[in-house]
């Protein structure tokens, strides 16, 4: 056990990263098209969950509307391409900015609110967004959705095959991951996390708490916008059903199971929640329920998620309690032994 732990220590981090990278590069050459599509879906969710991780994990503002920001990006990109024939790269950027702007607007009222109210506001945004896209027939074509969105084209190269899209998205995810990680491990990231842990404490060291909350929200939702633009062009069809509240909840779950406050956790969480339903597909109708049970089991036995830090979960959950009980039992036993010695 110790040796296994040692293998995953910081010393071997570079080795594991290199190995993972090689696997990711080699993967499309040995996998089926379906598997490639699953991987690509994971990449899109990676962007979403990374964004949400910054907002919910690092800034501590439980964002229940990530799917709506995702949708804003997707619809902006799709409409720009379909109606005005704007090149993809521009749509991509505008989609990110548009979602970021929405994020900015949503975060402003959130500054005055407690966690739960904030979750409610983002939930409300999610539903308002859905109501708009479902009913603004002339632009979004309502529940029918937008079809025939052209595939991604960059500098004259069309990304239409599964492999090419795979590599494009892999590249984007890697770049975004590095940037996000850099942000988190910088002055800004620390300020964001400090604000989450103690807003007044953060202000007392000169951190402009409100500014960093808004900043985290804008960065996180911008990523969702990017993901939306990519998704729209990748699938070629979007409808309101892609951006329902359940999707937001799934993204939230990815972050929590991955481990709130851990960027790599958001990647693991995304992979987990895309792959798990595929794996338990044979369970058919029981699938959702099994997913639920897995979530409950996680919360009971590892509330900090796969990679989250114990400190963040601040847990006195079942594990801690068992540990405490064990300690008490040990102490009682020792005391009893000592008493026994005394008698002798």
């Amino acid at each position: 056990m110790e040796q296994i732990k040692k293998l995953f220590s910081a010393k071997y981090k570079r080795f594991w990263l290199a190995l993972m990278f090689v696997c990711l590069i080699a993967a499309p050459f040995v996998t089926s098209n379906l598997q490639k599509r699953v991987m690509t879906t994971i990449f899109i969710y990676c962007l979403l969950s990374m964004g949400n991780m910054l907002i919910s994990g690092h800034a501590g503002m439980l964002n229940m509307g990530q799917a709506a920001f995702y949708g804003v990006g997707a619809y902006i990109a799709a409409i720009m391409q379909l109606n005005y024939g704007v090149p993809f790269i521009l749509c991509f950027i505008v989609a990110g900015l548009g979602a970021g702007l929405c994020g900015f607007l949503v975060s402003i009222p959130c500054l005055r609110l407690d966690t739960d109210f904030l979750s409610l506001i983002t939930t409300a945004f999610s539903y308002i967004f859905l109501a708009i896209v479902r009913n603004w027939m002339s632009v979004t074509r309502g529940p029918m959705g937008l079809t025939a969105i052209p595939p991604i084209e960059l500098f004259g190269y069309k990304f239409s095959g599964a492999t090419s899209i795979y590599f494009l998205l892999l590249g984007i995810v890697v770049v975004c991951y590095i940037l996000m990680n850099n942000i988190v491990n910088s002055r800004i990231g620390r300020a964001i996390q400090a604000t989450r842990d103690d807003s007044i404490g953060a202000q007392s060291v000169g951190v402009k708490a409100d500014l960093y909350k808004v900043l985290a929200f804008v960065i996180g939702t911008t990523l969702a916008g990017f993901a939306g633009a990519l998704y729209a062009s990748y699938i070629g069809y979007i409808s309101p059903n892609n951006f329902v509240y359940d999707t937001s909840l799934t993204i939230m779950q990815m972050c929590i199971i991955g481990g709130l406050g851990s960027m790599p956790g958001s990647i693991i969480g995304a992979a987990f929640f895309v792959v798990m339903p595929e794996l338990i597909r044979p369970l058919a109708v029981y699938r959702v329920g099994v997913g639920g049970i897995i979530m409950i089991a996680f919360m009971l036995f590892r509330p900090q998620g796969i990679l989250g830090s114990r400190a963040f979960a601040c847990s006195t959950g079942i594990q801690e309690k068992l540990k405490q009980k064990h300690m008490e039992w040990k102490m009682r036993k020792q005391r009893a032994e000592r008493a026994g010695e005394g008698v002798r």
Partner: protein
Amino acid sequence: MSEHVMEAQNIKMYFGGVHAVDDISVYVDKNEILGIIGPNGSGKTTLVNVLTGIYTPTEGKCLFNGQDITGKKLQNMTGLGIARTFQNLRIFKALTVMDNILVGQHLTISNSPWDILFHGKHYRETERKARERAMEALELVGLEKNADDFAGAIPYGAQKRLELARALVMDPRLLMLDEPTAGLNGVESEELMMLVKEIQQRNQISIILIEHNMKLMMKLSDRVLVMDAGREIALGVPAEIQSNPVVIKAYLGEG
């Protein structure tokens, strides 16, 4: 203009009908430790909260080096050179001890957005310096071994010292300590206060200190302000305070 480091002029802080701080005027000079004592609920913490901008006073003025800072926000105080600790610990529990200190250097670390995104040379340089400085601060309070532990996981006394180190790393000219020894045992509080005194003399800073431990207070403070029910009942050097009949009455009862 007299050069008091901080001067409070006729501060009044009312919450509805509650007069938490009622007409307090006090000043701190350079290199001076001003102690504030008083029974619980006498408005000591509220006074400090007003001075650090958490509350805007109902009436009165705060001057810092002659500059009017009344109504300035807490987050802007650090830039002026005012740092504080809190009665009920406001450390960042889910960050490591090291990161806590690095957050304390928020204003001194300057990075462009470009640096932050790509971790360029300048970033690495500033980060290295910041870490060195943080390590010095941690050594000062004896926490260097805990640098990588989560702040929420270290013992209470260590957390108190961590908060002090976080305040010190900001290079304040005025430090406000709100019950730094609350919850510590006798030896620990003695050590902590000796540390405070040492730092104060070395860095030539002024300190406003709220404390219940009378013995320590009298030993450390240059002057002491005694509050009761939001009002000043005495202000002077420790010897005076100790023999002041009003103070004795307030503390020892009518007998």
